[in-house]
């Protein structure tokens, strides 16, 4: 189970606690979102959390500090996920070096497909970061093989055509079976993790039977949004995470 959270949401200080709590409650990988003002692959939920985080004053340096802080007590794999412009502005080379130095394991950059990977792939590899590329339902077999060759860590399988968080779990479950089968025959070197539209344990369980893992983002951020800033908001969020993975215990 991989969990996505926007760095600096709902506030700057909670991100470290959230990641450590996710680790304790069943997460296997953390995708830490680097907020961007114009997240064109994201639905309303992640647009919202990105805006809040930017208003909170999140910076790239602060994101690296968060990772450094987590690394003091946790070895959970951390993948930074975000759009290319903030990375480009930071300087691709410094970004890769600072990322690996702070304890980041890999990168997902949804607006940098294999065609444009030369902007960062060499630097990332030199620094020792995994590069995770995406496949979608309309990706051809041949292209899936290319993505498999370029990727390390895992391949991110976008379950439906659409933005993050937009589709219902049922819709995803119905259409996704055949697609995952096709991914599995073409992506053979890397594990496949399925994301987009997974909202609860039932969705997750269905995906877990077919793929190597699943990714939850928007539903987790919605949960935070519903409970923050009530006194026990983190308890609710961690319960959600536990239930996501293990169901009702």
């Amino acid at each position, binding site marked *: 189970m991989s969990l996505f959270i926007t760095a600096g949401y709902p506030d700057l200080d909670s991100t470290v606690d959230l990641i450590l709590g996710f680790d304790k409650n069943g997460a296997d990988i953390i995708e830490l979102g680097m907020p*961007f003002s*114009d997240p*064109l692959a994201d639905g309303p939920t992640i647009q919202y959390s990105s805006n809040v985080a930017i208003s909170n004053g999140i910076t790239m340096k602060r994101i690296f500090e968060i990772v450094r802080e987590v690394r003091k007590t946790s070895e959970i794999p951390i993948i930074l996920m975000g759009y290319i412009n903030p990375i480009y502005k930071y300087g691709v080379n410094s970004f890769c070096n600072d990322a690996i130095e702070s304890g980041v394991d890999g990168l997902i950059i*949804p607006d940098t497909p294999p*065609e444009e990977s030369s902007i960062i792939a060499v630097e990332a590899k030199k620094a020792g970061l995994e590069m995770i590329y*995406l496949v*979608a339902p309309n990706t051809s077999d041949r292209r899936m093989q290319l993505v498999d060759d370029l990727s390390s860590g895992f391949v991110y399988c976008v379950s439906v055509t659409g933005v993050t968080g937009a589709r219902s779990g049922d819709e995803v479950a119905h259409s996704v079976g055949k697609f995952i089968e096709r991914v599995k025959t073409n992506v053979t070197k890397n594990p496949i993790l399925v994301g987009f539209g997974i909202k609860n344990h039932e969705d997750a369980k269905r995906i877990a039977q077919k793929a190597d893992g699943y990714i939850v983002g928007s539903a987790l951020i919605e949960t935070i949004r519903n409970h923050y800033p009530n006194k026990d908001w983190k308890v609710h969020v961690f319960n959600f995470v536990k239930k996501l993975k293990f169901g009702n215990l």
Partner: protein
Amino acid sequence: MYGGKFVPEILIPALEELEEAYHQVQSDPLFQKEYHDLLREYVGRPTKLTLANRLTDHYGRAKIYLKREDLCHTGAHKINNAIGQLLLAKRMGKSRIIAETGAGQHGVATATACAKFGFECVIYMGAEDMERQRLNVDRMRLLGAEVRSVESGSKTLKDATNEAIRDWVTNVENTFYIIGSVVGPHPYPMMTRNFHRVIGEETMEQLRYSEGELPDYLIACVGGGSNAIGFFYPFIENENVKMIGIEAAGLGADTDQTAATLSIGTPGILHGSMSYLLHNEEGQIQLAHSISAGLDYPGVGPEHSYLHDTKRVHYYGITDREAMDAVRLVSEKEGIIPAIETAHAFAYLEKLMPLTQRDEIVVVNCSGRGDKDMETISRWFHENQKL
């Protein structure tokens, strides 16, 4: 270095399909005939090249000509591209058209083309722009388009573009995205430029007839930069033709209320391509400001970035106030109320004309007419007690 395909994986097959289809129609005489017939019979091309004699007398220097894109059907150059891309969509068997719009001119052009061919049409427009350009919103609705208000971010063109891309990602199978400027992922900037090249080609032909020579200066306004690139492109090889692209400086390029991307921006990636951008230290896109909704964009077409770096085209910022002064001047001297976007190009005459000679020729691309801006224009002149 500029351009590219910085888009989510889902759009890559769509861009490949588009590229292939565009490549085919470029050399398809049937497509080209249909396109040029429509430009002639429906858009009203060729548009006139008008000698602006009173404006010429006013400055007492070089002769000023206007390329009259304001006379195109719908009132601006945008329709050249909307018709071209719609024909391509038809050829590709897409049933649904989406577009973003800032000032509303591209939205109107797209809605018009969709009405003419019976296509479903959804236009994304920033809530703030809908307020500034109410007449164009009603025009689009009258033409049968659905106008969706975009409430995210700055509620202007940049956010409308984000939302159109999100729609495209979701409905990629049946939907064709008609981008309104020379921005976005490849092949859009090239394709849109080529659908507007007719502006420069006609200008060259018309000047050869009336003057027997090439122009000395070309001036056009630049938001994304579609009218400018269409106007400049056929002249690029002629080193003696000096070209000036006019950006909106808003309240001034040294303030934070500006849209002068090339003058003060730095390279970055937005809406699928690398180009100059207005963004902060963290790479977050900054809000652009211009009194003109059509120039209110924090990016610019990648080819303009290239022409800026190579200094083939010079880019210059004009403020809101300078543009509005030009609206008045051109209206009074030539009987043409220009769009506020276009007025930015005219305003540069104040700087350029004293440096020109009487035997030189200046051509301004009169990219659109000002009817759509009358509310903004009235408000401005009433506030400044000049009307």
